[in-house]
């Protein structure tokens, strides 16, 4: 039985990633196309929200992945800080833009969904606001990676920023909840949560199965993209190292 840390070796990682990637990518495409088509064409309208309920198949998975991507970056950062595996740091770097795009999707679909449902594109609802803050964190993290020239320094700095940022993201979540307490009495706002959960079991099953397929599709897509982008980062770093050596003589 081989240890998980074997994949910290860039060569081994690339080999395995190349072997796994087509499967993950294929499965994710199947799940996404299947789940979205199922949701779009073959689910009934919600009696209250009409056909807008179909947005749930994009909104909820994207929102889930926006948070999970950050968690994955946090884990990868910890692994880098503790065990100094370069692949881990590069995987965190590779995941950040994917997470940022997921956040944008969650925000955009939320805004479009909110327009007919709440009569406004944007409310300073705790959830919306914390996603906006999460997006800002992604931007800062990506910008810091891009700005620092030395790779190891950049990995260290972004890892620490990721840890500090996680604490502050939680704080912000709490702060934002507190801040908007008086304006929105919560319950009416997150119908999506109620739909996905158990509250409307009858309706829920019709919507929930394709939703889970879509969530699986988004997870697999995230994994596929991170595998691909991590390979790219490993190659880019190796290229930089080789070119530096060339210049030396």
């Amino acid at each position, binding site marked *: 039985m081989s240890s998980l840390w074997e994949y910290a070796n860039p060569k081994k990682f690339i080999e395995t990633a190349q072997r796994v990637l087509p499967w993950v990518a294929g499965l994710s495409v199947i799940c996404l196309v299947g789940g979205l088509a199922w949701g779009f064409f073959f689910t009934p309208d919600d009696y209250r929200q*009409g056909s807008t309920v179909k947005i749930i198949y994009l909104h909820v998975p994207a929102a889930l992945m926006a948070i999970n991507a950050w968690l994955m970056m946090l884990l990868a950062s910890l692994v880098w800080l503790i065990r100094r595996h370069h692949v881990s740091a590069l995987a965190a770097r590779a995941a950040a833009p994917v997470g940022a795009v997921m956040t944008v999707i969650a925000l955009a679909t939320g805004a479009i969904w909110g327009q007919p449902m709440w009569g406004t594109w944007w409310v300073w609802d705790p959830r919306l606001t914390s996603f906006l803050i999460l997006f800002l964190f992604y931007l800062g993290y990506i910008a810091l990676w891009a700005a620092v020239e030395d790779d190891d320094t950049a990995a260290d700095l972004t890892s620490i920023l990721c840890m500090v940022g996680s604490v502050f993201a939680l704080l912000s979540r709490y702060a934002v909840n507190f801040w908007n307490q008086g304006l929105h009495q919560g319950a009416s706002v997150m119908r999506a949560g109620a739909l996905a959960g158990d509250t409307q079991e009858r309706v829920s099953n019709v919507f929930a199965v394709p939703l889970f397929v879509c969530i699986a599709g988004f997870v697999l897509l995230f994994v596929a993209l991170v595998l691909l982008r991590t390979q790219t980062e490993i190659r880019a770093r190796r290229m930089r190292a080789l070119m530096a050596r060339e210049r030396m003589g």
Partner: protein
Amino acid sequence: MMPELGKYAATVLSSYGISILLLVALTALSLRRAARVRRELAAVEARRKP
């Protein structure tokens, strides 16, 4: 066989459109950069051991 979207057609279609556009763009950019870096690395490696 378009489903009946009713008065929310624009809402639903635009959110599907934007999301799919973003996902496809992200994937395309990732793939393009992957291909470019792979090509350039191959070139550098080839130069190193002639």
